[in-house]
């Protein structure tokens, strides 16, 4: 078993002037592990995700990432070129709104192939073959490879976004409410797909969601946030079945029984 974390966050803080986005955030993520960050709107969970994924600048604290070459630098030590390379090869980011993560004006195949071309693949046939493989893995018919994402349903767009992220075999995926904008029936299919891909590819995932059912289904560990702070963290089923913090108890008590 791999005993080194892939990501360590220590005393992370993000301030907007006097306003606290998130503060005193410390946790680790191990390879192959799914960590859910839950909390209501305004709890700072998306701010936290954006800081870790370097889409937003942190105010203070440490974020270390295990590179493929085993180095373990603070992300702030990496050059912009290294960071951007990381983002399009080793990392993925699945946005709530697929349009934010896709290029809507080019075909599904080009969307999936973009990362391959970005790392220097120059064989059209090969790029196309891999794109169609990935479309099928996310349950999109390969015959739709030349169709524009605008002609896709919400669920298909979300699955396309997932394929586009996974084509370079990243090791760490950030997800921001990946099923947030979808109908319930469509949501189940996307969740099931995510669950399978995450385990087949041994991905590490940090997923932000306000939906505890999604967190329960996908994650092994859970971090509960309120007002920018972590109020409770631990094994997902432990946090949900035996919540200790008043806020977590309130969250869990609010779930509709199924």
């Amino acid at each position: 078993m791999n005993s080194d974390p892939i990501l360590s966050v220590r005393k992370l803080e993000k301030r907007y002037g006097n306003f606290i986005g998130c503060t005193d955030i410390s946790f680790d993520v191990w390879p192959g592990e799914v960590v859910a960050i839950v909390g209501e709107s305004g709890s700072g969970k998306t701010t936290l995700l954006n800081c870790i994924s370097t889409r937003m600048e942190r105010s203070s604290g440490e974020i270390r990432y295990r590179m493929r070459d085993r180095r373990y630098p603070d992300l702030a030590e990496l050059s912009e070129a290294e960071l951007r390379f990381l983002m399009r090869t080793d990392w993925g980011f699945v946005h709530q709104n697929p349009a934010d993560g896709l290029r809507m004006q080019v075909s599904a195949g080009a969307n999936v192939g973009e990362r391959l071309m970005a790392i220097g693949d120059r064989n059209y046939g090969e790029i196309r073959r891999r794109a169609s493989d990935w479309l099928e893995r996310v349950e999109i018919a390969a015959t739709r490879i030349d169709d524009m994402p605008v002609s896709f349903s919400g669920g298909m767009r979300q699955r396309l976004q997932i394929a586009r992220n996974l084509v370079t075999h990243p090791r760490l995926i950030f997800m921001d409410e990946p099923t947030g904008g979808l109908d319930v029936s469509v949501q189940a299919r996307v969740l099931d797909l995510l669950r399978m891909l995450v385990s087949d590819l041994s991905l590490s995932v940090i997923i932000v969601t306000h939906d505890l059912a999604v967190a329960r289904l996908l994650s092994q560990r859970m971090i509960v946030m309120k007002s920018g702070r972590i109020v409770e963290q631990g094994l997902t089923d432990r946090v949900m079945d035996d919540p200790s913090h008043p806020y977590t108890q309130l969250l869990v008590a609010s779930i509709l029984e199924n």
Partner: protein
Amino acid sequence: MKKPSLPAYNFAYLDEQTKRMIRRAILKAIAIPGYQVPFASREMPMPYGWGTGGVQVTASILGPDDVLKVIDQGADDTTNAVSIRDFFAKVADVATTTRTTDATIIQTRHRIPETPLTQGQIIVYQVPIPEPLRFLEPRETETRVMHALEEYGLVHVKLYEDIAQHGHIATTYAYPVKVEGRYVMDPSPIPKFDNPKMHRSPALQLFGAGREKRIYALPPFTNVISLDFEDHPFKVQRFESRCALCDAQDVYMDEVITDDRGGRMFVCSDTDHCETRRSEGYQGAGLPQHGAAKADWEAAQ
């Protein structure tokens, strides 16, 4: 008492400070081939899109001894070409020509002359959109970072999309090139037919975009490679027909409609090249090459 007189035009219209500013941009552009240098584009006595960038570059490099040629779509006799040539004849009093070989400076829109350029010549391109990444990335801040970090995957996304939608790379003009293995550059809307002429050309090539306020350059003998895929290599288009006037082949052709019954013929797009060949005795069929008019003519024979 002497009558006060207004000063005449400054030589080549622009004031010396502006020319100095533009020359500095040009020098930087030459030093970093393919890199887009911002410059303080001036208002010119013509609308944007008519060549304000090219005119400012020409004005800044023009000397009294230069011989200027201006072409538009390969022709010396179109409105835009004639106006710009007359403009410089008036404001700089320089000699003008239509002959590629006689010119020291050639300002162009849409074409590179068929006659190979030589050492000492300068070709100035009028550029509408200098940013080759613009079609997929609208943010200027982002495209600048992409250039800085050599993140050029997007250019291939565009070419991929071409092949996916058309079965081949359908981009036929403004075809992206890589300069000296570093910057990806938009060669302005010249046909991709002309792309190979940029590669290791002995002439200095300058590009001016007035509205977008960018200047870039290819110093003589710069490597200019058209981007492509391994299994879809870059190819220039070939024309089946020969020039109806000068019988040339393997040049870029314009299609000319000769009647309303489908009659049409192909002629050299480069008017100087065509005239030169005709003066050397070459002669084309001079007749409709296609359509009903051709059938009529053949029947009459």
